[in-house]
């Protein structure tokens, strides 16, 4: 009775249920290890062509295949038509910032990359190859990906520490003719912006007038700031706060930032602390919006800080697995709208709403890159769909169950790529939508067929129908 469980206040978290939460995480971990031992990885390569006998290899392989190679040699762009490149991306990591685990190295990052590939496949119909790399510098990572690019239609950077992730994304986007994406920057920021657009709408605010506080100056919030300003947020009403307090132009560590994190440095000069000095408390007085993407500690944002904000404030507490303030606490302190990163509370800001559809869209349009306009197109489409289903303080964003949204986001992305003149395939919105629907539904059909045929083993720890 999942519905009953959901309708009880989900965020009435007291220490005992936080403990229950922790126990559940431990149990899920045990199960993941058991299943990893059973299945030995999450993927195998499965042909998409008939192979009836070895004779078929005369066309799939030599001698016939040489003619295909010849065509591509004469027109390299054909590698997107005559091979699986059009729908294949690499999930690249150096393992330097994996989940909440930190710098665990490429081997240990592999299960996570496999999981990400499974999401790409299941939600986006994208063939994603997990590629954890043993590299010792950002430059080496960039060079390696440049060498790998001929096999791929796109690159997804994953779990790379900030700020080097900014440098790596910029370099690869500049030097590669295929789209490059870093989910921790762009995916999270796009989902955040989508939720914020609807939160502003619900509370009758306009982006041009609000005062916003961004707590945390990591990959996601630096991009969220950039996107908000691109949408018309006044940078001087934007206050970024990190562990040292408000990021203003006079801060002692600014020179160091100029050298080590020029993205954060630029943001400091652009926002000038939103006209504020001091700590998070100072930043939040009379603010309309808080977007926290910082530390998983429910005492990071205090109730009195929320009370000091403008009436009916918007609070996004996105740290995982524990938000910076529990939703109940935030609402008791006056928050009109609360969003978190978790699926068990309302309003989950989840990058899985974004990346599968973005890649579906850019791959279908064969876009050469993913500029911010595309990220914003995805965010706006997500926001639009949630609004169509009716906005409430508990329904800001589509949930992961609303799968019908994904093809629309993909089509919006592809159409935007065409509008920007960076698409090599220019179809109509309807065509992109139909194509996305078809391509996104294939994995489920395939998976069902294989499972029904017993070719994919049922979960060994679940009772099978009729066997119980």
């Amino acid at each position, binding site marked *: 009775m999942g519905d009953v469980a959901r309708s009880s206040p989900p965020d009435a978290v007291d220490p005992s249920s936080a403990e229950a939460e922790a126990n559940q995480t431990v149990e899920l971990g045990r199960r993941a290890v058991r299943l990893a031992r059973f299945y030995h990885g999450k993927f195998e390569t499965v042909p998409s062509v008939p192979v009836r006998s070895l004779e078929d290899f005369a066309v799939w392989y030599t001698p016939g295949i040489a003619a295909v190679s010849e065509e591509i040699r004469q027109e390299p762009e054909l590698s997107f038509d005559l091979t699986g490149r059009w729908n294949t991306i690499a999930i690249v990591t150096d393992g330097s910032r994996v989940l909440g685990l930190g710098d665990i190295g490429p081997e240990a990052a592999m299960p996570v990359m496999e999981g990400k590939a499974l999401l790409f496949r299941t939600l986006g119909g994208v063939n994603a190859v997990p590629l954890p790399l043993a590299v010792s510098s950002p430059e080496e990572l960039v060079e390696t990906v440049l060498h790998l690019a001929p096999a791929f239609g796109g690159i997804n950077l994953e779990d790379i520490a900030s700020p080097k992730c900014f440098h790596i994304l910029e370099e690869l986007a500049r030097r590669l003719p295929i789209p490059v994406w870093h989910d921790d920057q762009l995916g999270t920021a796009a989902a955040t912006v989508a939720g914020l657009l609807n939160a502003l709408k619900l509370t009758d605010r306009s982006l041009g007038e609000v005062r916003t506080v961004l707590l945390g100056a990591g990959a996601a919030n630096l991009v969220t700031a950039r996107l908000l300003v691109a949408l018309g947020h006044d940078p001087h009403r934007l206050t970024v706060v990190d562990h040292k307090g408000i990021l203003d*132009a006079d801060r*002692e560590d600014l*020179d*160091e930032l100029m*050298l080590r994190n020029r993205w954060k*440095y630029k943001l400091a*000069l652009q926002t000038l602390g939103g006209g504020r000095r001091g700590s998070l408390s100072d930043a939040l007085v009379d603010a309309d919006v808080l977007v926290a993407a910082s530390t998983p500690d429910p005492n990071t944002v205090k109730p009195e800080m929320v009370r000091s904000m403008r009436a009916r404030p918007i609070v996004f507490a996105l740290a995982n697995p524990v938000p910076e303030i529990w939703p109940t606490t935030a609402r008791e302190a006056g928050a009109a709208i609360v969003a978190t990163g978790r699926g068990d509370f309302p309003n989950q800001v989840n990058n899985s709403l974004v990346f599968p559809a973005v890649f579906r869209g850019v791959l279908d349009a064969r876009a050469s890159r993913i500029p911010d306009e595309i990220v914003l197109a995805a965010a706006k489409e997500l926001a639009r769909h949630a609004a169509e289903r009716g906005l409430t303080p508990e329904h800001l964003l589509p949930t992961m169950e609303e799968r019908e949204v994904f093809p629309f986001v993909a089509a919006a992305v592809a159409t935007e790529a065409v509008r920007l003149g960076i698409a090599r395939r220019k179809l109509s919105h309807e065509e992109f939508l139909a194509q996305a629907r078809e391509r996104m539904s294939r994995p489920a059909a395939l998976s069902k067929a294989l499972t029904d045929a017993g070719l994919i083993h049922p979960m060994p720890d679940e009772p099978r129908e009729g066997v119980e």
Partner: protein
Amino acid sequence: MTHPGGSSAASHGAEDRIRLRPARREDLPHLVPLLLRLKRLNEEFDPLLKVRADAEERAQAVLEADLENPQSVLLAAEGSGADHGKLVGIVRATVRERPFYTPEKEGVILDIYLLPLYRRHGVGEYLLEETTRRLAERGAGIVTAEFPTQNEIAARFYAKRGFRPITALHARTL
């Protein structure tokens, strides 16, 4: 305190943002933190440039000596507009003899620091021009700049303005 106007186009916007003038004794309490910021920035580039514990007192003494020394150029950059009167930058330079080479007098730019907010818009260029002019007035026929080897931003700044490396300073601890 009339401002000796720079003639180049690059300095026009700069003069709206800051005003450069010779430092006075009463400026020193405000210049010391700026000089220390620069030295801490240098520390970022190289552990051999680790700032010592008593750097603040030493900075005060060094700046006082600069004020006394006719060969030294010590300039204070004042903010304009809302920041009028606020000290936002420092320049230290001096003229040295070159006993073996010509030109015989070298103007050395020792320290240039501007608060981040006042950078760009040709401000650095303006500082360099003004400093160079004052060094030339003291007889310098060549102008040089000292900065940490690893500071590529400084290297690019000077390279763009016709500077090139002539002497290298190599170090090891004992």
